[in-house]
């Protein structure tokens, strides 16, 4: 198992290289540059422009810029944000907990609901319930996140007033950032009502971000369950006189989980991409919103660093999923 993880980590190196190259190339392909966007074209002093570009190293040929970027990376230096002069790594990890908190809550919503929906659809195959659940899942999967988010805000925040429109916590609370996770920090602060407020702010963004993963999990669970329920060992379990619930949860679900865990792992990519939109809609101060702003400002180091770090997260999660296979499936565990 240890060797397996090492091998997987080694394979990551070329992937990293690819990510840096892609991120670098893409952001430099967008017209405009950071100085132009900071100062504005109208009153631009050509002399100032030249020195500023030189100071940022942007007057060098692209391959040299890339080379400098790479050599910085090897020393653990992701560069400084052009906007704030802060190290990119520091900025990213200040904001990252907010994104993780949102993503985790989205998955905490999506996984159980998706699993339950898939199981119910599979056990009532071909009925109205099955078609209803799967229709809803397909709708959820096809829903543009930004539109879905706005609709939910309109209904629940504006018309019904049940949930806050944006932000992580009500303005009256001033919570010192300890872990960066609002739910934890509010508990640590001991301020009354702060935790509830943070939770309250999480509900709508979590649902919006969790909708697509939920739909994917539901569809995958259904098809995996249908396959497993046809297996001989399910017949054995029934012949033992086990209850229907026990057969489904203990005997079928465990075997159906493999492909479901795979898609949950794959959803992490979708999730972070979705987080960019969701955070923007809900003014959620996470890396998604930060990345969008950085692209708008052509903040090259922030964009490159942000993409690289998010890419790393996705790779690591997929590695974790592979390791989890072994836990779920004894056949794989022993094969290694």
């Amino acid at each position, binding site marked *: 198992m240890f060797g397996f993880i090492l091998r997987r980590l080694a394979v990551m190196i070329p992937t990293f290289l690819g990510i840096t190259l892609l991120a670098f190339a893409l952001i430099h392909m967008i017209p405009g540059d950071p100085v132009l966007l900071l100062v504005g074209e109208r009153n631009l002093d050509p002399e100032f422009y030249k020195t500023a570009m030189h100071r940022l190293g942007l007057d060098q040929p692209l391959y040299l810029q890339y080379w400098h970027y790479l050599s910085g990376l090897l020393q653990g230096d992701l560069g400084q944000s052009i906007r704030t002069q802060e190290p990119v790594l520091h900025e990213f990890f200040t904001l990252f907990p907010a994104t993780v908190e949102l993503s985790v809550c989205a998955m905490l919503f999506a996984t159980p609901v998706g699993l339950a929906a898939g199981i119910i659809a599979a056990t009532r195959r071909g009925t109205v319930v099955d078609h209803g659940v799967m229709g809803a899942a397909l709708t959820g999967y096809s829903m543009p996140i930004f539109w879905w988010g706005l609709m939910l805000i309109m209904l629940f925040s504006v018309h019904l007033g049940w949930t806050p429109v944006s932000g992580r916590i009500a303005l009256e609370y001033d919570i010192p950032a300890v872990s960066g996770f609002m739910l934890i920090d509010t508990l640590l602060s001991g301020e009354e009502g702060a935790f509830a407020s943070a939770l309250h702010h999480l509900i709508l963004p979590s649902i919006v971000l969790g909708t697509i993963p939920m739909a994917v999990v539901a569809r995958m669970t259904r098809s995996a369950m249908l396959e497993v329920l046809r*297996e*001989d*060992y399910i*017949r*054995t*379990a*029934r*012949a*033992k*006189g*086990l*209850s229907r619930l026990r057969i489904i949860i203990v*005997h079928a679900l*465990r*075997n159906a989980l493999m492909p479901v865990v795979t898609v949950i792992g794959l959803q992490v990519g979708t999730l972070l991409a979705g987080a960019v939109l969701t955070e923007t809609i809900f003014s959620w101060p996470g890396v998604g919103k930060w990345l969008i702003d950085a692209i708008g400002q052509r903040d090259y180091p922030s964009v490159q660093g942000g993409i690289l770090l998010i890419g790393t997260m996705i790779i690591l999660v997929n590695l974790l999923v592979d390791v989890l296979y072994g836990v*779920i*499936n*004894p*056949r794989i565990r*022993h094969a290694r």
Partner: protein
Amino acid sequence: MSLLEIRNLSVEFGSVQHPFRAVDGLDLTVSRGEIVGIVGESGSGKSVTMLALMGLIDAPGRVSAERLMFDGQDMLAMKPAQRRAILGRDIAMIFQDALTSLNPAYTVGFQLCETLRLHGGLSRKDAQRRALELLEMVEIPAARSRLDAYPHQLSGGMSQRVMIAMALACNPKLLIADEPTTALDVTVQAQIMELLVSLQQQHDMGLILITHDLAVVAEVADRVAVMYAGEVVETSSVPAIFETPRHPYTQALLAAIPEHSKGAERLATLPGVVPGQYDRPHGCLLAPRCPYAQARCAEARPPLFPFVDAGYVPEANDLLKVRCYTPLNDSGEPSHV
């Protein structure tokens, strides 16, 4: 009193307008300590009958019966939960492919203890101990270490032994073995059969042995029911059916045994195939293939006639039933030609 009594059991699949009868009007009785063989070719309804008895036929399959008595209890009147309480405890079943019949995600010990704890109400510790006893009973070497083994670590014969241990966990009164040795190689087949029969005798169980291996039936069964296209065509006691088959299908089945055609270039066969969903004859199901068929065979389906023969003692007569207008006589000729 018989342990199991099935009367007029039918299983239908497909739509209500165009049903396909996989089992048609089946009667069967099994007594305690008796081994009843059910033989027939693939698709003749052997397995479906047993699944119907266990209540394991899912919609859109439909099961109907006139009478379904097990151990003095009317299974037709039972609620699903009451029926489940009997399954695995009083009626147990083992299947053809033991390797795929064990859940790959759980250890042998877990799957054994599950039955014990469900039906026996045993504590975790007692169940573990009993599971070990069971594995030793089915003669699994190094039984203790096998408790923690996963199914994929077992051989085919070993998994069938585990299945048997699981089936016998609660000392069932009736064991249904659905082709228990078909998936195993020949040397292991004999061992498993031997084990099954010795356990059957020890526990005085009723054993229904579904098979298409006539040699196995000849060796171990007390009685046999021959099925063709969803119907029982002949029931008889065991040496008798091999000496004097009364139904033309049974006769043809026996003639197809390789040992009976020594020296011949080809095995004896019956022309044609088993009728499917759309070409079921109106009359006797075998009529299109039967060498002795007459006009009336195609007109109406014969019922299962008790076969009365001077050579049989009266008590044994109710054992022998034949679904044929002209059952074969002792010399293998149709009786009323």
